[in-house]
């Protein structure tokens, strides 16, 4: 079990961002992490990557505790934050070289060329990040997330801002990576869930309201599309 979360709770002041959630994911599976805005998706991801500590409960990634063994967790996780923060004054290759250096990758030049190829950054790789369009910046973020070949990938809305052609390519890449890695991705695009996810976790107001394989969840709500299921579970209209 590469990600295991046990009754994880995070309080911001008095507000419960996530409320005792428990789930686990397997290697070789892409898990879709769905929920309305403010449901707690990004908070969960920030805890899993060791950026913020939880209030109570525990979480492990690749067997390492996210608080006490934070450095090991960070070595094994590739993370693309929702806001995709970048050093805008850096060149694409420069920024990848910086991240490669942080991870002490052997033969960085070769690995950088590989991820540029994988993420389709080729035509833009000589530019500064600040000059790139949103879709290409998103690819830089993705390239940074996969450069150290992590076992676990945590992608917070990885396809936001991509055009339809880019979407196909990036989803294909996520599927390929998902064959060997554990991937958690959040998204608001339901076709994407159908296209790339094996498992689905739906979270609403900090609580998990559904957690099953994509196949299983469709069996359970016979005849409904994933979009109808999502709306039913999270809007209180079911």
């Amino acid at each position: 079990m590469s990600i295991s979360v046990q009754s994880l709770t995070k309080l911001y002041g008095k507000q419960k961002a996530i409320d005792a959630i428990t789930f686990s994911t397997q290697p070789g599976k892409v898990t879709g992490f769905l929920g309305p805005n403010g449901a707690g998706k990004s908070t969960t991801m920030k805890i899993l990557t060791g950026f913020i500590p939880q209030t109570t409960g525990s979480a492990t990634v690749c067997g390492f505790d996210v608080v006490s063994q934070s450095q090991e967790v960070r070595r094994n996780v590739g993370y693309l934050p929702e806001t995709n923060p970048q050093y805008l004054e850096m060149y694409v290759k420069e920024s990848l070289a910086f991240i490669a250096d942080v991870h002490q990758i052997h033969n960085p030049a070769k690995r950088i060329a590989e991820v540029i190829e994988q993420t389709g950054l080729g035509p833009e790789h000589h530019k500064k990040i600040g000059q790139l369009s949103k879709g290409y910046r998103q690819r830089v973020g993705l390239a940074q997330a996969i450069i150290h070949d992590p076992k676990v990938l945590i992608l917070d809305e990885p396809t936001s801002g991509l055009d339809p052609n880019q979407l196909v390519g990036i989803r294909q890449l996520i599927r390929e990576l998902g064959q060997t890695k554990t991937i958690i991705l959040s998204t608001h695009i339901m076709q994407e869930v159908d296209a790339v996810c094996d498992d689905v976790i739906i979270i609403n107001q900090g609580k998990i309201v559904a957690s099953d394989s994509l196949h299983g969840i469709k069996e359970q709500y016979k005849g409904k599309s994933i979009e109808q299921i999502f709306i039913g579970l999270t809007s209180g209209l079911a």
Partner: protein
Amino acid sequence: MVAYITIGVFLLVMGLFLWVFPDSSILDYGYSGLDSLFSTAPYLFMFLIPAVTMRSLAEERKEGTFELLATRPLTDWQIIAGKYLACLLIVLFALAPTLIYYYTVYTLGNPVGNIDTGAVIGSYIGLFLLGSSFTAIGIFASSITNNQIIAFTVAVFLSFFAFSGFDSLSGLLSLQNYALQDFGINEHYQSISRGVLDTRDLIYFLSFIAVFLTITKTILGGRKW
């Protein structure tokens, strides 16, 4: 970019003070010494070092890139040390070209070489330690806010207070017995400038830097944003 301008302004103002403005000019002073350099530099550092450091952590917070750093296999100490040493290097780059003034005064002396080299070396060490302390203050000020202007203002005030505030306070009648000036940077800076490197002064500066960087670490660890 900030660094080039800061270094440029530092050297320009320094040059004006030492060689052009008559009140502090070495040429008008009559003695071959670099005293004006070492009495002016702390006040320039007070404004220029905060300008260099204000961006370091405040910008990372504002742009969210701190998340990029903090989710990589780096400890908070490594991030702080990186920022601190980078800023300190800029301070050194600003200071290095002024060594040429030593050579100038050395040559202009009558007889040639009539300059107290020991005091100059001591003063440079003192100025470097003072710069290191101001840099630590600046990094701290940059960690408490995501607004660079606030970081700059706080750093200037703290640097000024740490440098000469305790001296002035110790002049208050009711506080004259407490040797308050020992807490200030100026007291230790002057002591090192005399050319005697006392371990007490060295320990003072090292603890000063350690205290501010430790507070910075605590603030970063809190992740209150």
